[in-house]
């Protein structure tokens, strides 16, 4: 007789425990976000509102940055959408495992589907006994969610005391730079990044921050073209990172 699958509470606690190492990386970003949001002029409620309702670290930094630059709200929302499009990949990866769950479970899991939750849950879903693996995901997701909310709050409370002369706003592009580097895994990714940077510089005169959106969309097209070209050069070779 096979051993019983882990109980829901066992799965939940394992999910939360497996998240602990990554929380060490999440906390400083939450603190940093709370502090920066106030620095660009958001109220504490608005800053916490972004963490509560959007709950997506990089998109929140982008939103705050565009608010600072005075971009139009619609353009900011569009940019958040583009920045978060990668979640659709996670959603596609998770979908086969959750197809049999009731809608309320899938709705909650989708809400908690961040980069970090996906990273921590992927090994669990590649393992066995998936009967109650959604409880593992819930433990991971709630650990990340509460940690992000708390660290944002602490950042809001203590971040307001950072002096202006430190040019802290420059930490934003540096943060994005640090996020960019690990994505440059091959030639098409480089092509997309170079095109995005150059086009955004050229199109920066467009109103309401639209240049950024347009540059990003065109750059993805250029990256795709580069990928097609490199495949044509080396037939038979499968592209990297195909999930």
């Amino acid at each position: 007789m096979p051993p019983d699958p882990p109980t829901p509470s066992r799965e939940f606690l394992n999910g939360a425990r497996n998240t602990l190492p990554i929380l060490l990386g999440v906390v400083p970003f939450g603190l940093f976000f709370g502090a920066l949001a106030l620095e660009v002029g958001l109220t504490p409620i608005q800053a916490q509102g972004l963490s509560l309702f959007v709950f997506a670290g990089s998109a929140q930094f982008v939103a705050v940055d565009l608010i600072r630059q005075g971009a139009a709200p619609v353009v900011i929302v569009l940019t958040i959408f583009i920045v978060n499009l990668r979640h659709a990949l996670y959603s596609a990866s998770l979908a086969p495992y959750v197809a049999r769950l009731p809608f309320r479970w899938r709705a909650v899991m989708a809400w908690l589907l961040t980069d970090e939750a996906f990273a921590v849950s992927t090994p669990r879903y590649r393992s066995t006994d998936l009967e109650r693996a959604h409880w593992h995901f819930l433990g991971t997701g709630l650990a990340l969610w509460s940690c992000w909310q708390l660290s944002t709050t602490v950042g809001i409370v203590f971040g307001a005391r950072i002096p202006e002369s430190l040019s802290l706003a420059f930490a934003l592009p540096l943060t994005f730079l640090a996020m960019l580097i690990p994505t440059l895994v091959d030639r098409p990714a480089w092509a997309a990044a170079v095109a995005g940077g150059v086009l955004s510089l050229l199109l920066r005169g467009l109103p309401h921050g639209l240049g950024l959106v347009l540059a990003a969309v065109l750059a993805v097209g250029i990256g795709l073209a580069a990928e097609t070209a490199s495949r044509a050069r080396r037939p038979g070779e499968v592209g990297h990172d195909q999930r």
Partner: protein
Amino acid sequence: MTSAETWTVIVGGMVVTYATRLSFILLPHPERLPEVFRRGLRLVAPAVLAAIIVPQVIVLESGQAEFFGPRPAAALFAALIGWRTRNTWLAIGGGMIALWILQALGA
């Protein structure tokens, strides 16, 4: 930005973000994802991040582009640290310290 505009960003941001996360979880046949869509999604992050970074590093408050100056140099330094160490915090910290030193020297 007015309070109503900021809340538009927050609520709109919530809706579009949740839509990306829910997307394929709601689809009846998630395995039928068009190939070009998968390939394109992978390139979104480098494209959009670079598009955000470059003007902020290079363009001054006046709107002039400045390719040689404290900000581009500090960003280049941060990129080098990030590249070598793969450590986000070292890259940000190193870039900020480089900026402060260069600004102090220039002043």
